[in-house]
């Protein structure tokens, strides 16, 4: 029964990784930028959840406004940081992104203080039990929300004109442009959706930990890189599989190998082993 419990915990963790990592892989697919500052946007989502709930007294309001605000912040990051340096070699936007991420962490510390923030009254403290599995309501919600949102994203990409335009821009931006697709609009949309999903993950993590601190994004900032490489850079389906696989692996690893290896090191050990066998990641093209 412990086996099922650990598996479920792994899927919960993996779902939250998936929500964050999708935005990163979308940006990489479109612009070939490793958008490290994405983890800062995730933290922003978590802060909005806590601060808005505590000041205005409504968690639902906070949960509804956090994704669009963070989505807009993501668009701003593209416009102000990446667009002016798109013609530079890839390490330039990467360094700029790391710089922005550090600025965001210190910015959160200056604005919200170094102590971290918690909900005055933590919402949703209910727990659920399914036979041997006993989980927090928020944990169940994390899995459901991740599947619904990422499912909707898949439908959007596969079934709508917007999705077609987006996929065309990923495959061949110049050709897409010559067919009348506004690739700048596609990029804005890309940043909006990816950042909004990260904000959803931020809201859920804020609920789960009841604690949001300036450095909340520091682990995701590098672990998400391992996930998108595992998934085959830019490959959304691969990213989801990698996120869930890593969540499960960490869950068992924490218990059975925790005295040997740090939980965060598991991601990179897994990455190294997978890359030795499949250098293109799970679903990347060889």
């Amino acid at each position, binding site marked *: *029964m*412990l086996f099922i*419990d*650990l598996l479920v*915990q*792994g899927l*919960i*963790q993996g779902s939250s990784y998936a929500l964050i990592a999708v935005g990163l892989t979308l940006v990489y697919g479109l612009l070939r930028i490793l958008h490290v500052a994405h983890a800062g946007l995730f933290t922003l989502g978590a802060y909005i959840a806590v601060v808005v709930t505590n000041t205005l007294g409504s968690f639902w309001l906070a949960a509804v406004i956090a994704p669009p605000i963070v989505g807009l912040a993501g668009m701003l990051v593209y416009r102000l940081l990446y667009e002016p340096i798109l013609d530079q070699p890839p390490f330039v936007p990467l360094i700029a992104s790391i710089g922005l991420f550090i600025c965001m962490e*210190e910015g959160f*510390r200056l604005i919200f*203080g*170094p*102590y*971290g923030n*918690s909900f005055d*009254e*933590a919402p949703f*403290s209910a*727990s659920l039990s399914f036979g041997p599995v*006993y*989980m*927090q309501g928020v*944990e169940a919600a994390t899995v459901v929300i991740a599947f619904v949102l990422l499912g909707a994203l898949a439908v959007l990409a596969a079934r709508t004109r917007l999705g077609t335009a987006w996929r065309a821009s990923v495959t061949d931006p110049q050709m897409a442009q010559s067919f009348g697709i506004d690739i700048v609009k596609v990029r804005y949309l890309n940043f909006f959706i990816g950042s909004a999903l990260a904000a959803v993950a931020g809201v859920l*993590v804020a609920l*789960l*930990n*009841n*604690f949001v*601190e*300036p*450095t*909340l994004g*520091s*682990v995701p900032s590098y672990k998400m890189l391992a996930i998108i490489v595992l998934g085959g850079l830019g490959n959304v389906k691969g990213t989801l599989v990698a996120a869930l696989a890593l969540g499960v692996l*960490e*869950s*068992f690893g*924490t*218990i059975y190998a*925790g*005295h040997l290896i*740090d*939980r*965060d090191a598991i991601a990179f050990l897994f990455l190294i082993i997978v890359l030795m066998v499949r250098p293109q990641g799970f679903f990347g093209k060889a």
Partner: protein
Amino acid sequence: MNFKTFLAFAAVSAIALTGSAWAESVKIGFNAPLTGFAAADGKSALTGAELAVEQANAEGGINGKTIELVVYDDGAKPDQAVPAAKKLIGQDGVKIGISGSYSGSTRAAAQVFQDASVPYISAYAIHPDITRSGKYVFRTSFMGEVQGRAGAKLAGEMLGAKKVVLITLQNDFGKSLAAGFKSKAADFGVSVVNEYQYSIKDRQFGPIVSKVRADNPDAIYASGYFFTAGPLVKQLRARGVKAPIIGQEGYDSDKFIDIAGPAAEGVIITTSLDRDSKKPETMNFIKSFEAKAGFGADMVAASAHTAVKVAVAAMRKAGTDDPAAIRDAIAATRNLAVSTGSISFNGLGEVTKAVQNQVVKGGKWRHHSVIDDPALLAPPSE
């Protein structure tokens, strides 16, 4: 003399006058993490130290001289602590240094102070090697191992637990606590059934909670800081783990209760600050700190306050700026009453004082019990 020359003359004499006023002050060096992941503890420590300096200055400073606290940020990193220590000694000419920082940075800075033969006091860093840097280095808080032994007594003798699970933070703090706990567990009839480790970056403990639930222990001994222990305790209780939880001074902040919420109720910790103390030094500290900081006192603040008080008392007694004399005065400290109890040092510069157990009751840290067993709590002396 025309007007311009007069102005220049006035400016020069003003600078000279301020200069002479500065010479009338005594500098105490202070390094703490004011940025980065440990910035919260750095801020508490700094506020506690500032309070001690203000109080000492109000009492007339050190033999008539004003005390000035010279502060550097070390980010809790050794590579920032070393230049900070060098600046404090070389550039600022401090006669004594105090660490309001974690073990890594404190160890690094301690060596610099020792090499320069300037006294250095670790306020709350727990690594055993800090005082082993040499005879100029002291510590006013418990070593991890000492506090771990107190935890074993609390679990076995005071709570009657037989089967205990350890959840250990994978750093020098957590590991030395666990080592201390395990060294005395058998003496108090406790068997450690399992130990799980987590990293300081972890905030989600789902898998560990699953396993602890399956282990069904009589008590949980979990090391950590308020920012790891808060989420851990919340998640343990949210998933139906009801065993008593024993923590340590790392939990000792109102932030822990804010994060864990109702789940914090009943958590017991071994620490240095007794919120319900009737001792005037402690009561006065708790009240003054709240007034100054705008939030409740915590262990880190009390420890930094204690370290500054020890330094000031020694400098008053030494009556000179000579670091060697100040060092001897610190070593000779006996039963000095401060906010964290009554301070004496052993030959290695380790503090000997009683452990204060606190419990969360009605959303507040309250007195639980005291462990004052000199044999159990004896720090290493070499």
